[in-house]
């Protein structure tokens, strides 16, 4: 249970920050903080983009400057964190080589892709956008906050050193096996190529360390090996696509050999090797698809993966793999997880905090706690119900989606124009084409 908020704390908090921005209190909703039991008739206090208090609304008296938002009857939970998505039409490696850690998702993402707004409509506030799985190493992934901006650089999550947070995308199994030059044709070859590369990275790091900063002795910069060194040093997490039970064990074997931190993705056969995954202390980012099959590696995928992993003590989260499943339906994953035996609390954590942990961001996002980013969603009801809708999505104290707004409603439900990037509102014309036609007819103002 969360501690009750004291009046003194609130007064102190609001007084100190009053000059810049007055605090906003969302009052009356059921708050699901994830880190504690749901709070009926709760209070969520937000200021300067941060959560400043979470608790029972009846136990506090708010300062005079607090703006109050009555959300009685609603449900508030942390913004959803999607640990694996392809929104923004993100790219990575090309077809020249199976190992390209130098390729960055950052350099490809279209922040105006309507799928970003559809993700906000689905309640997603943070997302790991990844290059595809057709390579052993397909590049650097990017952890984004879905802030209101349409410029990718404004969506980044900055690490203390100023660099954008992200992981390294890897894959094994059939996706990276291709009949094209340089690509592996078997699983053993796939693993050998990866081991070779990590050994190179170990040597690169050793050379760099031996140089002790002497520019004459430092190895020439290698954009790819630099990333692998980050992985070896635990600064960058490997986000690893894998399906079949033997492929899962191969990932764990390589992670053990080189000592890197890994999150397993999709993990269709997780239910068969849950104990091994637990023993390796690897987290799992799983997907819920509506039926098994479609590719041989997913013939045994089960809705019960979440339940089995939870029981085995594995950190387990859901992902959309958008467009394999749609961000707008992300909450549904948790519902189906519970259907197949997951605990309610575990399923809600799997949409939020568990994914934040996998991205190394659990100190900032994934739960509603004082001091964390004010990323939250307002729901019309139970998050696990098909009849519930996401009414508002907030990132760092700013509203980025509102179902009551006709344009946002379009992205939430679909309809003509929902596939387009958001455009400038034209006062007197339905679309840019009308404007052009009007201009050609001499009618433009």
């Amino acid at each position: 249970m969360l501690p009750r908020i004291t009046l003194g704390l609130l007064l102190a908090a609001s007084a100190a920050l009053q000059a810049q921005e007055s605090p906003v209190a969302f009052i009356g909703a059921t708050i699901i903080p994830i880190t504690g039991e749901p709070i009926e008739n709760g209070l969520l206090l937000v200021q300067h983009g941060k959560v400043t208090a979470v608790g029972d609304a009846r136990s506090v008296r708010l300062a005079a400057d607090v703006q109050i938002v009555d959300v009685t009857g609603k449900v508030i939970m942390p913004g959803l964190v999607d640990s694996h998505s392809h929104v923004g039409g993100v790219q990575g490696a090309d077809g020249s080589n199976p190992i390209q850690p130098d390729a960055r998702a950052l350099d490809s993402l279209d922040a105006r892709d309507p799928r970003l707004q559809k993700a906000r409509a689905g309640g997603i506030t943070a997302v790991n956008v990844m290059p595809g799985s057709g390579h052993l190493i397909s590049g650097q992934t990017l952890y984004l906050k879905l802030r209101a901006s349409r410029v990718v650089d404004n969506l980044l999550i900055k690490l203390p050193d100023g660099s954008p947070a992200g992981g390294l995308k890897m894959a094994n199994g059939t996706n990276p096996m291709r009949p094209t030059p340089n690509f592996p044709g078997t699983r053993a070859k796939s693993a050998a190529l990866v081991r070779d590369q990590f050994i190179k990275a170990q040597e690169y790091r050793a050379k760099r360390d031996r140089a002790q900063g002497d520019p004459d002795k430092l190895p020439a910069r290698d954009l790819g090996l630099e990333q692998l060194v980050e992985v070896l040093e635990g600064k960058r997490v490997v986000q690893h696509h894998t399906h079949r039970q033997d492929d899962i064990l191969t990932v764990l074997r390589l992670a053990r050999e080189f000592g890197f931190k890994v999150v397993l993705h999709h993990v269709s056969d997780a239910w068969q090797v849950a104990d091994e995954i637990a023993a390796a202390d690897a987290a799992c980012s799983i997907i819920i698809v509506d039926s098994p099959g479609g590719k041989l590696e997913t013939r045994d995928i089960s809705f019960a993966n979440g339940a089995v992993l939870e029981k085995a003590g594995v950190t387990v989260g859901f992902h959309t793999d958008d467009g394999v499943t749609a961000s707008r339906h992300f909450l549904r994953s948790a519902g189906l997880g519970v259907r197949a035996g997951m605990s309610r609390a575990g399923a809600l954590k799997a949409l939020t905090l568990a994914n934040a942990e996998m991205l190394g961001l659990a100190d900032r996002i994934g739960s509603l706690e004082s001091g964390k980013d004010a990323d939250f969603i307002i729901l019309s009801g139970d998050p696990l119900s098909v009849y519930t809708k996401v009414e508002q999505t907030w990132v760092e104290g700013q509203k980025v989606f509102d179902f009551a707004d006709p344009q946002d409603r379009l992205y939430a439900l679909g309809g003509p124009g929902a596939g387009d990037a958001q455009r400038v509102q034209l006062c007197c014309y339905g679309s840019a084409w009308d404007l052009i036609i009007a201009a050609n007819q001499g009618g433009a103002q």
Partner: protein
Amino acid sequence: MKRSLARNLCRSLLCAAALVAAPFATADEAAMPVAIHGEMVYPVSGAPIPGGLVLVRDGTITYVGPAEDMVYTMDYRIVRAKVVVPGLIDARDTVGLSGLLNQPHDQDMLEKSAPMQPELRAIDAYNPRDPLVAYVRSYGITTVHTGHAPGMLVSGQTMVVKTLGGTADGDTLKPAAMTAVSLGSAGTTDQAGKSPGTRSKAMAMLRAELLKAQEYARKLALPDETKRPARDLRMETMLRALDGTQPLLITAHRQQDIMSALRLAAEFNLSLVLDGCSDAPLVLDEIKAAGFPVVLHPTMARSFGDLENLSMETAAKLRTAGVPFAIQSGYESYVPKTRVVLFEAGVAAGKGLGFEAALAAVTLNAARIIGVDDRVGSLEVGKDADLALYDGDPFEYTTRCLAVFINGREFPGERHEP
């Protein structure tokens, strides 16, 4: 009113557990009449019945009504569930043709050797033992309208089959239900030098084909037998489209493709079933005026290409407009290899359609559109004993399907425990 013979002594001994389980009824049990109690029974053809009872004997429904109005004999096997609904009907999918593995040997949903092959019959390809047949059944789907997928201008003939998992011939309700036509991107091969490569060309080819069939019909009617044409499977199929005995199922998503379908119907006096219809809200009046039913795209279909404008609210809009419609699971080429129409209807229910209309869209309304409502689609005396049993609102994500009955035979519901 109490109608009955002997008081069922077993009844008081039954546990209140939600249901049932042995995966399959034994041979003895299969022959037994079944009494299915639901805390709520939805016949769909009539008002919901709290404390409802459905009696099943010899594969047929013999009673639907309040449990308190009926006493049955001791030979009935008793089954209980929170919610009992008619077996669900998927108004359009490719289950049994597009197999789970997605390998060449189990993919029979699309023949690409020519753009128009109406002579292809789904029943000659349907594999009742494909695991996806049992998979969708485990969620309560007891009847599917399956067959060749969208993707060729005329891809083949569909069938209506129960998900019994027996044989194609034995399980089938309708061996040749409709002839599948694809307009828009799905119907144009888009390969250099191959026709049709444009929408206009596709329509021209379709019109020419129907004209040919009209000519075939004229010659068949010639008084001089020697002048009649030889049998032509392709023409025979198109002829059934012309005389209305086997309607065209036209997949059209963009509004211009929907309008092309309506134009074609007007020219040849065809009866159509419209399939997909992402842009339906843009031409709702026209669809309504034409009077054709809509088999709507999956609510959660991916909104790309021709489906770019799809809306989760379209089902609700069709309902408001009074257009008869059903919801489908459609065709998937990758993962998931099939959608589950229960889930698609659920999302529509949550996006303005509401529970009862969503249920009708995957039961009685679907049965009417695919022409099998004399047998299935509602819980009525005399209809096939096809039922799905759930432990709550069937559309809720967290609800489970507990058991399924087809022709009175019990099949297991969904299972997740490895």
